[in-house]
């Protein structure tokens, strides 16, 4: 398991290759990369986080995903600080024996990182700077992972 919270840019392709090479026995590797979009005239994004809690929260989310889907390995890299359109904000990768588990775990990680890891985005655009509001959608996305809910991996 790798957690890296770092302002520095990273090479998603190189990370994916390293991750896949290390995940011995995996038949399926899923990756997600989040990229700054320049829509609405956005010129930059600034990501604030809570040092200490971030690493702890992300590691807990990773451990839960690994346990729940029997992952062979998982990775979260998340940048903070100032980013401009086209830059990669973060990535997750999951390795499992089969594809259903790798996909479900990657979606779970993204849903939890969105709303349960202490990051906050501020967007700089033509109208000035605004804090990105959490979306109701993101809370709805979380509810599908509750133990009582029907699990996508059971479909």
């Amino acid at each position: 398991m790798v957690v890296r919270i770092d302002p520095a840019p990273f090479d998603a392709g190189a990370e994916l290759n390293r991750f896949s090479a290390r995940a011995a026995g995996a038949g399926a590797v899923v990756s997600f990369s989040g990229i700054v979009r320049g829509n609405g005239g956005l010129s930059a994004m600034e990501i604030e986080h809570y040092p200490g809690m971030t690493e702890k929260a992300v590691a807990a989310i990773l451990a839960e995903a690994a346990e729940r889907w029997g992952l062979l390995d998982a990775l979260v890299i998340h940048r903070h600080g100032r980013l401009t359109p086209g830059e990669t904000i973060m990535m997750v990768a999951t390795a499992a024996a089969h594809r259903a588990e790798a996909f479900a775990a990657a979606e779970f990680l993204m849903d939890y990182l969105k709303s349960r890891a202490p990051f906050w985005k501020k967007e700089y655009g033509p109208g000035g700077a605004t804090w990105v509001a959490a979306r109701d959608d993101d809370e709805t996305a979380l509810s599908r992972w509750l133990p009582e809910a029907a699990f996508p991996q059971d479909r």
Partner: protein
Amino acid sequence: MTLELLYFAWVRERIGLPRERVETRAATVAELVTELSAREARYALAFADLRALRVALDQDLAEFDAPLAGVREVAFFPPMTGG
């Protein structure tokens, strides 16, 4: 008791500082919020709508009615927007 308070995102901006140390006898997060809000308008403004706020006690998410006994670090922030 001495608490380390941390503020993030617009909570930090409204209160005007990222962290501070406070002496308090508040038993719960809600009592602490009431105490801070009574101090100055900028606190009252930051804590005006608790539904728009989240709190973490010693780096774990908590509810506003959680007790403060044994806690060292209290962080206030808006809903997270990672990923």
